[in-house]
């Protein structure tokens, strides 16, 4: 029963999404709105600005380095959290009995 309800709801969502998607610019065309002056700037000036031929690297570790820093912190957080759940105090949860 639950599956049928969710299936109907989500197929409605899918229909809306696809009908919205079809209005958007086609895949891979040069007049995409996202292929704008920002992209052209990256392509033309990344060598001059950073001297790194790999544009993805140039953006990742120079233009938007703060994102990359944030995401190394995500990794660090994951480690801390997983260790706090999995390792520390696993064998001796004596005073934490019950619900």
């Amino acid at each position: 029963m639950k599956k049928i309800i969710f299936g109907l709801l989500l197929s409605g969502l899918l229909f809306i999404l696809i009908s919205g998607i079809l209005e958007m610019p086609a895949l891979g065309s040069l007049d995409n709105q996202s292929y704008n002056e920002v992209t052209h700037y990256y392509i033309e000036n990344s060598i001059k600005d950073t001297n790194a031929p790999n544009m993805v690297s140039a953006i990742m570790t120079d233009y938007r380095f703060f994102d990359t820093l944030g995401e190394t912190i995500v990794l660090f957080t994951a480690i801390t959290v997983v260790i706090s759940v999995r390792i520390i105090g696993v064998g001796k949860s004596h005073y934490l009995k019950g619900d």
Partner: protein
Amino acid sequence: MDLIKSLLDHINYVGSVTLFVIGLYTVLTHSNLLKKVIGINIMETSIFLFFVSIGYISGGKTPIIYPGTEDVYYVNPLPSTLILTGIVVALSITVYSLSLIMRLYKEYGTLDMDKIMEIRSETQDE
């Protein structure tokens, strides 16, 4: 005919949207905890596909400039960069949820969310 042509023009977007909905369906309907995590992963992948497709230019080259190549199109490098960040985030979320599932299995002895909720409500009544 127009509809089919239009669908083919947007085939990546349509695919990723479909994957998104499939993932959402998996998360919402399955009570198995592992299947929920798998559903989350499907949704993440669908968004990555969507983002990378935005940056794709037909005939475009990889955004690495080799000396002596001129007059070529490059694909948009920004979405690829964002997705690299997104993949790492997805990995962290998956690992954390898996470790929580392992603890939950140890405590409750089952992977089924409905059964866990039953056990919990029984212990709360006491």
